[in-house]
């Protein structure tokens, strides 16, 4: 077993998920929050797409499938939906943020409710 065999899609997906979470826990800038969220989601997408993948299998469209291993199409189909939703949510988050920044000039999460955002 070569050392690089450990680096499968699933492992990288899990790592990306937690890197994203780390960003969410530590970064106070709202834009960085949105970026971390995207990283986290990419981790999930990668994880799904590589679920139960065996090397040498083929995509299940447009070819004769008798006698060959073909990839489970369900996770990919699910991820198309999830990606679309992810883009939608990111877009809404960015829209809110831009509205907030332009109107009130605030780019950071605040410490408590009564301050509602800070400018530094």
């Amino acid at each position, binding site marked *: 077993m070569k050392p690089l065999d450990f680096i499968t899609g699933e492992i990288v997906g899990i790592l990306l998920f937690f890197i994203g979470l780390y960003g969410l826990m530590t970064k106070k800038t709202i834009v960085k929050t949105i970026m971390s969220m995207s990283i986290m989601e990419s981790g999930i997408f990668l*994880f*799904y797409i590589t679920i139960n993948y065996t090397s040498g299998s083929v995509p299940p469209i447009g070819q004769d499938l008798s006698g060959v291993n073909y990839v489970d199409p369900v996770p990919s189909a699910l991820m198309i939906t999830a990606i679309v939703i992810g883009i939608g949510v990111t877009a809404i988050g960015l829209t*809110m943020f831009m509205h907030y920044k332009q109107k009130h000039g605030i780019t950071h999460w605040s410490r*408590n409710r009564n301050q509602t955002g800070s400018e530094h």
Partner: protein
Amino acid sequence: MLYWLIIIPIIIAVINIGFIHRDSRNLIVGSQIGVTGYASYLFYLVRQEGTIIDNMAGYPRGFAITLYADRISMVLVWLTTLLFLGLLLYAYTGDYFSSQFGFLYLTLQSLIIGLFLSTDLFNIYVLLEVSTVVVAILIMLMKDKQAVYDGMIFLFVSVISSGFWLFGVGFLYRTFGYLDLHAIEEIITEVEDPRSLILPFAFMMTTISLKIALFPLSSWLPKAYGTPSAPPVIPAILSGVYETTGLYLFVRVSFMFAQVIELNAFFLVIGFVTSIVGFVLAVGQNDLRLLLAYSTISQVGLIIVGFSFGSEASYWGSMYHMFAHSLFKTVLFLSVGVLTHHYGTRNIHSIRGVMKTLPVTGFAIIFGLLGITGAPLFNGSISKYMISYGSDSPYIQLLLNLINLGTLVYSMKFAAMLFGRNTMTDELKEKNTVHDLPQWIAFAFGALTLASGIFGNFLLEFLYGYDFAILPGEYLEKSFIYLLLMLAAFAIYRGWVRGRDLFSKIGYIELSFNSMITAQVIFFMGLVGYMYWLA
């Protein structure tokens, strides 16, 4: 058949925003009456013929997206349609009722019904995510500074937690190759190493615990509920219906894992902690909406406690408490909306004399408060009585009574508004009428709270088919305890709360956005660690 319940609101929503340029309120109300009627018919069918299962597109069970309506989900769907109809009538005269509001409102209804009916785990993820977006937009409908900030916090925290759900579902799919709740439930015992289910369980439970706002994860809730500019129906929907979706998922998912993973003790402790923290913070609030928001947290803790006892009576007690909580919380949030409209403030100390100026709302509030505290004859008393059946341990009974005492203390604080010298300014008094539609809607829900208490036994049988005999002797004993607790609560209120030193300081404790996410991760890690320690 079931899918009509999900499709019709969406279609009406699209017609409303896309094709009708005049006032479309009547169309929306009409469609709501239709949907409520159809849901009642389906409930009748489920009662007569048993569970309805709809496999979409004719694929076999387990592979298709399945809509599943048994007693539990159908009751909640029916309650949802009823509440949405009532809230719509409440909002009918409001100035915020634009076609944009109608669109979001109907979409949210459809998504929530979908959440109750769907058994497909990925489908549930989609519905959770989209309903989060809709709720976030509803929260910041007025686009002021506070509303946008609260909306963003709610959106991001919820979206991140849905990510946990999606990841958990991925692990399950990897193990079983199914996405259907019931299909997984059937084969879950065949898993070779039960430890491989720890991660998916922890991921999914973290999401659900955040949705229902269990203790370390509850900081988003007061922000989302307490946004000053949001119309009063929004916190009512959030507390009455949206919260219930989370509890429903909690029941379904823990049932799915029940044969392999059982964490009753864990959730019992978390439930008690949530409930106690909830009422302590509720007592500290001066803003009416925030007080009710924290009280929601406290009640949810109690419901989780009931589910975690593992006894049948307390399980159905919690089920009935979900039902009752939807009703009395709707009453209270709507009444707060009325008061804010008439008094022009939401500060608990500057509203007095409601009973004299707005008697209809006054009675609605009394009904709601008697319901939430579990006064004899009201629905809360039945459900709390059943929950207390879960355990014989005196410590647990003591804790349950403590929670009820806390509930009574913040209810006293709330009820202080009803009496005393009127503080409504003459200017506002002339502007508004004493009797208007919103007040009567709040009152109608209050009357339902009373009715579902008086006919509690009958309703339990009617809704869930569960026969529960309430012993008159014990019920009297509980009523006596209630009176004693009420006296104690009154003493506490007079002595400590009114002076508002100790509690109001506690009331300001809250987490920042980053700490909320950290709490989520800690909760997840704790859950995983605890389960590995058990296994």
